[in-house]
């Protein structure tokens, strides 16, 4: 049993923390790649910016400025600063529900991001700054894993993490493999390596597929791998599991919709066929998956957070 508002906040902490981490990684990869002055480097910057939803391709010409704005712009609701600030604000609202160890990690990240010295720190070493933020976000998740009860609240938090991750990786794949924007498939070794870096997937990929950079393998790895924690399939497995746990805690078995949606989505990715995907194009499939993620989010609200009171009043 937990307050609906609290479940909502925990879920959003998960989403914002995951979003912040992904944005940090995209910025970091972009800054690192564009140390080379090559066409491929600019392509990486374009991919990164498109994947964070910035349609302005011209910004790829000045990746440092783009990364700084993406990190620290307080007026941009999509910036890393905003995500951290919102995650922390949500955490403050449920301060009684998360352990002190977990809270301290998140508060620390926020204090650094919001300090007057943040701009100086970013300018003094942007990649160190981003790298440290990612490492601290990992510490936050680790502290939560090690100190919070793995009950209902924990499941709501992770549900937020994995739904967000599925959607972020989906958006990245859409940019790289979708037919809409990119007529010619990306073949460049440098660009493909950096796409894997954006998904934090380079090292795990190499262990499976060796240093052979094939778009087909990359798609297969980031979308359909069973064990890699950032593949979309892995995310949907986790979403299904955590939903099942919440429903078990709530004693609502058989009464709600999100578990059906989650099971169907997991099966869709589990039994997907890479040859079929290649011949039909990844776009349509990605769109279906992303739509279903959004549907799970909505039905989660209907079932646990914003349910109509009339249904739940005592007789």
């Amino acid at each position, binding site marked *: *049993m*937990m*307050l*609906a*508002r*609290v*479940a909502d906040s925990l879920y959003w902490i998960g989403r914002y923390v995951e979003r912040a981490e992904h944005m940090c990684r995209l910025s970091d990869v972009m800054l690192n790649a564009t140390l080379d002055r090559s066409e491929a480097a600019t392509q990486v910057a374009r991919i990164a910016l498109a994947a964070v939803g910035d349609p302005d391709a011209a910004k790829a010409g000045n990746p440092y400025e783009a990364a700084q704005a993406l990190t620290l712009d307080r007026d941009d609701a999509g910036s890393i600063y905003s995500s951290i600030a919102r995650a922390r*604000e949500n955490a*403050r*609202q*449920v*301060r*009684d*529900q998360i352990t*002190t160890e977990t*809270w*301290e990690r998140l*508060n*620390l990240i926020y*204090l650094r991001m919001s300090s007057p010295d943040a701009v100086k720190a970013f300018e003094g070493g942007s990649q160190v700054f981003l790298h440290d933020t990612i490492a601290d976000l990992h510490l936050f998740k680790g502290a939560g894993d090690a100190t919070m009860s793995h009950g*209902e609240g924990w499941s*709501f938090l992770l549900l937020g993490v994995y739904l967000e991750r599925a959607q972020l990786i989906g958006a990245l794949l859409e940019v790289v493999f979708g037919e809409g924007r990119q007529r010619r498939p990306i073949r460049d070794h440098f660009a493909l390596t950096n796409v894997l870096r954006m998904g934090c997937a380079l090292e795990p990929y190499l262990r499976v597929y060796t240093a052979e950079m094939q778009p087909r393998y990359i798609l297969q790895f980031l979308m359909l791998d069973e064990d890699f924690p950032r593949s979309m399939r892995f995310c949907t497995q986790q979403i299904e599991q955590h939903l099942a746990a*919440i429903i078990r*805690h*709530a*004693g*609502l078995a058989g009464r709600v919709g999100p578990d059906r949606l989650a099971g169907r989505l997991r099966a869709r990715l589990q039994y997907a066929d890479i040859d079929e995907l290649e011949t039909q194009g990844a776009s349509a499939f990605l769109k279906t998956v992303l739509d279903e993620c959004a549907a799970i989010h909505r039905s989660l609200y209907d079932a*646990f*957070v914003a*349910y109509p*009171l009339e249904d*739940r*009043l*005592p007789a």
Partner: protein
Amino acid sequence: MESTVSARLDEPASDAASPMGPYDEMRAPLGEVRPHYAALQARLSTLSAAELADRQKTQERFFLLQGITFTVYGAESSTERIIPTDILPRIIPAAEWSRIEAGLTQRLRALNMFLADIYSEQQILMDGVVPRELVMQAPSYRREMQNLYVPHNAYANVCGSDLIRQENGEFAVLEDNLRVPSGVSYMLANREASKRVFPGTFRAAGVRAIDRYPDLLLTTLKSMAADWRPNPQVVVLTPGVYNSAYYEHAYLARLMGVPLVEGRDLVVHDNMVYMRTTTGLRRIDVIYRRVDDDFIDPLTFRRDSSLGAAGLFNAYRAGNVVICNAPGTGVADDKAVYAYVPEIIRYYLGEDAILPNIETYLCREPAQLSHVLANLDKLVVKAVGASGGYGMLVGPHSTKAQRDAFADALRADPSNYIAQPTIQLSTAPCLIDGAVEPRHVDLRPFILSGEKIVVTPGALTRVALKKGSLVVNSSQGGGSKDTWVLSDGKGDRS
């Protein structure tokens, strides 16, 4: 934290006003260290200024990381700051504390009886001990509470009284806080911090433990519903994350292990109070509310409030939920009623007050009014209904024009004012820029009353960190420090 500080000035008054000077907590008049401060003094003498500053920094970082902050509201944006905290503990010996403890217990017992009386038979008003109109016209009097059953007559379940030590070394009550007193989380956080900063001295001194407070609070709250619900569901009701005491609300909920709810989480149906959970609605039995009376129920009190729940008060009247503290307790900490507390204690308990009041002139009495008017430049004048330093004249620091304006106001509406002499708070050693210097302090202990009355052996000591200042409010350069109540060696009772 909200706080009301009354007769405390920016500068010590002239020597004429306080011939003895403020009481020094650490040193006797001839400069020798009092015995209960000896161990701390010995430790301090071994630490360099740099080491002390280092410890101060450690403590501030601890507060910042924990998020023990309050919000300062500016013109455009609001920022979070830590409450200034001082690492040197304020120490109270066992014998002094047992007097404080007895005095506070006596006082709260009498005030609860007073509340039970005025919200039922009003015997004390019939007997003319407290003037009827003083009570019935107080803005904090709630006629909605009339003839309502309150278990154990425990109206003020959580009380935080402000004590000060006078020039003669005697503790006196400056103010009772029976509504929604705050600050207990700072008491607990200061303790956690000072254990880290002075572990050796702490162990050697024999300091009484305060960490049972959340447990005792929960027991107190549960005792308010235990008669009719075997295992009552307790919640803490907060106005929300933008309230300056939000940290404390979350802290207490977390340490008691009960939900922290906001008004929007509550639903009242058929005179029962529920909270919205992920599994549907769940019944609530006891609400420890940190929301003022006015805001708890828009149907009964202020209509524009969304901080409480519509219908909450009716559910309370119906006996289906307990609100702690009870609404209407403010009438017993009213500034004019304050002057009668020694009488109230004598009336109900047949005892003399163990802890004295500060001398108070009621301007509603013509003789006292003329005394006040003649001495406006020496006294502190306060409006009865106001708090937080508003509607107040500080005589020694006022201009002639201000005094004239107050004199007019006093003549026009005398019953709205009281006056007190200017008070010198005692001083305790504090770490100021690496050096140990005396600063003025007060003392806020916390008293719980449910089935029993329990005084936690500790307190929030508020400090005026600015040199010479007597203002301990956190909004005006005030800070806090840990308070060590020493054990008498007979083992802990609480």
